């Protein structure tokens, strides 16, 4: 073992104590990337997997062929959802720190990825989120109280106490149940889309996963089945550069973009500025049109940054440069959309402050209501009998017996 090892080890651009360094992120100027026809063949539009689709420039102008030309009201709604997501996150994080919930995960800095995408889709489209897509739930109008009750595992918890905090779902809003196992939802989304195609229905399925999770087999299955059956699916990779402590290079992002996986399977891959509300909206729309017109699946890589810790159990100061998100070259999605609206004359600092105050009050009021249904430490509590339900549709004899045994144990 004395010869020089040739094992290549990807390197994070900056570790604690080092200066943040984002030169590795390949950028395109806002407005610079062409917008191909939705029926273009994957092979003709491979550049989309290397370029970076951007609409908003640093001065808040919307530029180029991907500008979705949304009206101001829609932009304001988008801003509101993003801001609400952020305020909700912030408050729940503090709630966890105060010991009132066991666990929380923020999406700070990644709000556009969920909110803009969700707004570009139709209500009948089925969403298969990861744990960091709370913007989807908020955009689809889930009640904050319901979401908080899930975090609290209280008597109104939609999961009946069975899931860790943030593992929401909504049958009514067409949002699939979140799994603690990474990436599993992606080929499920493709299966859902295949069923829509089999049934001849006009809905598509959209799934999200982190760039770290693309290493799992399920990402490969999703691309493969989507390609073979040309399923009406949108597969979203949220490349926030980190998977807990592991830099995206360890998921294969050093050699090639994640969007580039698509063309390898004959699926168009689009790299988009994930902090640009307009770009995410436009690219999602484009992908949705492809799906709905039978042109098949699209892979979208959202280039963004995980500004927060991985979760409340994580301390990023151990593995990355302090405050590095402040140096992230694509800025902050809320700030960028706000600047754009102000530039359009459709927003102001005052209105922004007012909205912030309104949403903070909404979150606070929701929390107040949520805790009336119970907290971790105070009742009312869920009935432990519930533990034995929903394992099967009907409770089989052995679970009835175990339920009785638990009753005895607790008596």
């Amino acid at each position, binding site marked *: 073992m004395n010869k020089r090892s040739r094992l290549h080890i990807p390197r994070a651009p900056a570790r604690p104590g080092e200066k943040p360094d984002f030169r590795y992120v390949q950028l395109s100027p806002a407005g610079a990337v062409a917008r191909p026809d939705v029926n273009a063949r994957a092979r003709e539009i491979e550049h989309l997997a290397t370029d970076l689709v951007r609409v908003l420039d640093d001065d808040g102008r919307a530029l180029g062929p991907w500008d979705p030309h949304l009206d101001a009201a829609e932009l304001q709604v988008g801003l509101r959802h993003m801001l609400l997501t952020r305020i909700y996150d912030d408050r729940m994080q503090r709630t966890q720190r105060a010991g009132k919930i066991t666990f929380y995960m923020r999406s700070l800095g990644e709000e556009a990825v969920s909110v803009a995408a969700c707004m570009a889709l139709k209500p009948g489209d*089925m969403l298969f989120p990861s744990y960091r897509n709370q913007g989807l739930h908020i955009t689809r109008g889930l009640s904050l109280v319901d979401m908080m009750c899930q975090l609290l595992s209280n008597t109104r*918890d*939609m*999961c*009946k106490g*069975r*899931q860790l905090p943030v*593992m929401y*779902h*909504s*049958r009514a809003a067409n949002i*699939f*149940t979140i*799994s603690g*196992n990474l990436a*599993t939802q992606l*080929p*499920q*989304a*493709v*299966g*859902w*889309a*295949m*069923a*829509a*195609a*089999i*049934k001849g229905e006009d809905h598509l*399925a959209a799934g999200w996963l982190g760039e770290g999770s693309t290493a799992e*087999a*399920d990402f*490969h*299955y*999703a691309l*493969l*089945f989507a390609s*073979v*059956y040309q399923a009406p699916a949108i597969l979203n990779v949220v490349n926030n550069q980190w998977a807990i402590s592991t830099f995206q290079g360890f998921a294969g992002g050093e050699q090639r973009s994640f969007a580039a996986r698509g063309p390898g399977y004959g699926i168009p891959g689009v790299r988009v500025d994930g902090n640009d509300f307009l770009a995410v909206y436009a690219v999602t729309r484009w992908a949705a049109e492809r799906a709905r017109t039978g042109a098949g699946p699209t892979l979208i890589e959202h280039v963004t940054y995980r500004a927060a810790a991985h979760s409340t159990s994580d301390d990023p100061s151990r593995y990355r440069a302090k405050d590095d998100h402040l140096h992230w070259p694509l800025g902050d999605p809320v700030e960028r959309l706000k600047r754009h609206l102000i530039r359009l004359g459709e927003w102001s600092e005052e209105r922004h402050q007012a909205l912030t105050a309104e949403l903070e009050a909404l979150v606070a009021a929701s929390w107040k209501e949520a805790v009336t249904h119970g907290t971790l430490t105070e009742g009312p509590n869920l009935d432990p009998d519930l533990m034995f*339900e*929903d*394992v*099967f*549709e009907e409770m*089989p*004899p*052995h679970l009835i017996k175990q339920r009785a045994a638990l009753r005895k144990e607790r008596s």
Partner: protein
Amino acid sequence: MAQMNMIQALNSAMDIAMGRDPAVVLMGEDIGYFGGVFRVTDGLQRKYGEHRVIDSPIAEGGIVATAIGMAVNGLRPVAEIQFADYIYPGYDQIVSELARLRYRSAGAFCAPVTIRTPCGGGIRGGQTHSQSPEALFTHVAGLKVVMPSNPFDAKGLLIAAIEDDDPVVFFEPKRLYNGPFDGDPHKPAVPWSTHPKGEVPDGHYTVPLGRAEIVRAGSAVTIVTYGTMVYVAAAAAANLGVDAEIIDLRTLAPLDTDAICTSVKKTGRCVVAHEATRMSGFGAEILSVLQEECFYDLEAPIQRVTGWDTPYPHAFEWEYFPGQKRVELALRAVMEPA
């Protein structure tokens, strides 16, 4: 009533289910145009089209995952895993997703997927075409696990599985596809047409999940078994002239505890037999339940008859397979304990 072998009975089950419910779709490797390597889906693609009988990539994990997604979107997929030995790439989606969807979403979502897969040895398939991994599924809360032993049950159980809203892993002992097999490879093959359970109604019927069947009533000893071992056990008991009560579990999970306990309480003696490896095999669960429920009725230790704790070797197929002799020794031991 028609004469069917197990392949035809399974085919008929899917045909009936597809005819009654347009949501039933099939997916798997080589199942469409070709009709499956064991021909269980023969003719179904021609009848129901390529959008309902779907040839899939060789990706068991992808098959299960997309089947889950289809089920969530209102279909009732029946996925074929070509051999049970190849189910492991789909294990994560089965255990972490399929089995738990209903639970984790408190009933908001469920996935009525049936996974069919040929299992067991006796066809010189060597270590990767002979496995019986059922215990790896009975340990997973949320899954129903089925293994029929004859054409009549196979059809009725498969229709029941497809119609069930819970996920079912459906094992098909491939050595029984063409006829009952009593463990003696030297005897000429017996076709299902000579067996009463080869009489199979053409139309719709179900055999309920979770219910065992007493295939032979007896008073001296209970043999709890399933799949191919049903016939091996019967032959062994006949060889010894033991008046055995033979129970074919048919469904392993949920287990029909009542049926086995009632019998063992009556006979006081029990042999549990399966092809799978012994350690942590499903036999251990059966034995444990009986020990817990019938302790005071037992006159001798329950004996397990199983495959050995090795892979299934090509050359030693019949030394590995728990044949009549192994069952006989167990019956002897339980009848005249040392």
